[in-house]
């Protein structure tokens, strides 16, 4: 795999954007009702349509596909940030404990029987936010954020909240199916409201791009970054909160979708090298496209039924991660 010259890296980024656009059209075209590429284009430029395919396109498919793309971008970006901050290749967006908090929030919503829209997403956001506050407080000491303590607190909190969720699942009864789908992650029956929630994440996606140099320097360790003049505490806090917020938004609209936030940053680094400006850009693009395609697979693989998208991402992500581990000297 070429990682060397700036020229090849630029080519890879261009290819990634082409891949993104193609994936978008593919996801919009295929499904239980197939729509040709030409019709997709017509619908996109022509606005709302009255024919049945047009209704499916505007009311069901477009919001769902957009949501998948945004969630994929959020998870991949959060994963890139956290892997950089923690210098740990095994880090994914869920280590902060935010996802478990969000999952618990949604689970409570389901068990209590609140209407899914908009309550599940809001409760998930609330749960994720509370989890972040708790973990952050545990990781902080005398103005210094110890990112490893935070990580351990996050992992521990995840375990604890998972246990609570399991208890609720035992009590869930007929809600179990909905719960299971939520926990494994799914874009099923999501609409424009979820897209609107997810749109809050868009500005957050740009934040790490402003800290690309700092993220590069932090790969030499916090100590060295301080020596080189980086305001490490401030950068850490901004990036950590950004990653947690991206994760919380993603989880609140789609549940816990595994492996995208873990594998995509590695894939991006393999292609464009370690510089964060490029890794972040490519992660965002690849995360969006691959999540879209995974959801496509989830929709059509066992049609007319559906798989939770988290199962699809795990099926491709786990072997890919092992491949990356084996083929690369360092991740």
């Amino acid at each position, binding site marked *: 795999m070429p*990682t060397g010259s700036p020229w090849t890296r630029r080519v890879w980024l261009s290819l990634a954007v082409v891949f993104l656009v193609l994936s978008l059209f593919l996801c919009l075209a295929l499904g239980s009702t197939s729509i040709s590429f030409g019709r997709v284009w017509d619908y996109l430029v022509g606005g709302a349509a009255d024919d049945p395919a047009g209704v499916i396109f505007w009311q069901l498919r477009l919001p769902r596909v957009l949501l998948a793309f945004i969630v994929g971008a959020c998870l991949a970006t959060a994963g890139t940030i956290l892997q950089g901050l923690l210098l740990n290749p095994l880090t994914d967006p869920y280590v902060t404990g935010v996802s478990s908090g969000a999952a618990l929030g949604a689970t409570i919503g389901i068990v209590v029987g609140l209407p899914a829209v908009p309550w599940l997403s809001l409760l998930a956001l609330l749960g994720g936010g509370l989890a972040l506050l708790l973990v952050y407080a545990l990781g902080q000491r005398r103005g210094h954020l110890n990112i490893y303590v935070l990580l351990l607190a996050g992992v521990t909190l995840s375990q604890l909240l998972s246990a609570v969720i399991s208890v609720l699942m035992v009590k869930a009864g007929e809600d179990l199916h909905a719960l299971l789908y939520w926990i494994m992650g799914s874009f099923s029956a999501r609409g424009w409201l979820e897209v609107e929630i997810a749109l809050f994440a868009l500005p957050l996606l740009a934040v790490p791009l402003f800290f690309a*140099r*700092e993220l*590069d*320097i932090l*790969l*030499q*360790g916090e*100590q*060295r970054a*301080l*020596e*080189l*003049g*980086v*305001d*490490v505490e401030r950068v850490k806090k901004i990036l950590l909160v950004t990653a947690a917020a991206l994760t919380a938004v993603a989880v609140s609209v789609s549940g816990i979708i595994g492996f995208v936030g873990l594998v995509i940053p590695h894939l991006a*680094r393999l292609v464009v*090298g*370690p*510089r964060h400006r490029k890794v972040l850009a490519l992660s965002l693009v690849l995360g969006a496209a691959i999540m879209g395609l995974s959801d496509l697979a989830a929709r059509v693989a066992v049609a007319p039924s559906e798989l939770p998208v988290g199962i699809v991402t795990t099926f491709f992500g786990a072997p890919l991660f092992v491949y990356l581990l084996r083929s690369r000297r*360092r991740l």
Partner: protein
Amino acid sequence: MTSGLAIRPPDAAGEAQLVVDEVTFSYPEHPVLHGVSFAVRHGDFVGVVGPNGSGKSTLLRVIDGLLRPEHGAVLLDGRAVLNHARRDLARRVALVPQQFSLDFDFTALEVVEMGRYCRGEGGARASARRALRTLGVEHLAERLFPRLSGGERQMVVLAQALAQQPEVLLLDEPVSALDVAHQLQFFDCLERLNRGGLTVVCVLHDLNLALQYCRSLLMLADGGVAAWGPADEVLSPRVIGDVYGVSAHLHRHAGQAYLTFSPRPRPERRGRVHLLCGAGTGSLFMRRLTEAGYAVSAGVVNALDTDEVTGREMGLPMAVEAAFCAISDEVHEENAALAAAADVVILTDVPIGPGNLRNLEILRAAVARGTPAWMVAGLAQRDFSGGSAGVELAGVRQFPDGAAMLDELCRRPLPPH
């Protein structure tokens, strides 16, 4: 123990660039520095030396504002380093750390560019290249950093620090993992940068490198200043002996001073040995026997003879004749007096000529007194006095070589005479 050793008071703060004022620092439950004060002038080349755990690296981190002292302050041109934003301080002070790990595939040039962070986005690449060129390692620019050798990496890390364009460069044992060629290459670069006006403060373990390159030295011991001043004054055998607990010997050779070290002589006295030596045959005896706890004297040696230089550096009592002169009556008497006080008198394998023939009289006198008298066998081969040396040496114990003698002396103590 260390307070009495200050050689020169710190400079007046007026002309100083960097003032370390009464700095005290502790890790939890573990005091490291107490009351460290010194001042560095613009363009100085300062070495910081001292035993392991004496606080050298901690001091460097306090100077770079990375650690906050409990008492005291570090001032840079009169302003406390802790009053600088990190980024502002990085423009003035750069640190080359002891350990540097980066296990990602950045090129050397990209690593150096990171040093430009404190100076903003513009022209980073060009400055990084310039820094590599300054050190003569521009050829490393496109190589992947994790694949560089230790010496090459250290040059790149130095270039990274230079890319900050600092006024003061701090280095924490920058060459301790490098081979001798890379050590010298590294320090020659530092010397060049220093001549260009950069102030250098470098923590070092190798006292000879310190002596060779540093103008001023700060010797730390137990977190305090043991000595501070010009390098050759700080590295006196007395200071080194007090701080490190070893014997140090300062030599000058080919216009350069260098140090050698040996373990402290054992406190117990094993007896007196008098060496009849010269032409470098006695130097090893002097060193080894002193280390073994013997009181060693020597004679008659000529001034500036290798044995005379060694004995003088070690502070041994000696009977010394002027260079190239035959033994005079006066010096002969001195030699006889030293030998008379000895428990054993040794004739090394020094060549015998007319000039030092009288040394043999000393040996005969010892036999006559009943003092053990030893010599290296084969005198006939090194007798250039016309055959007069070999006569009447009965009663002198013969050894095949000097090593056998040393073995015998170091293995068991002499019976008291």
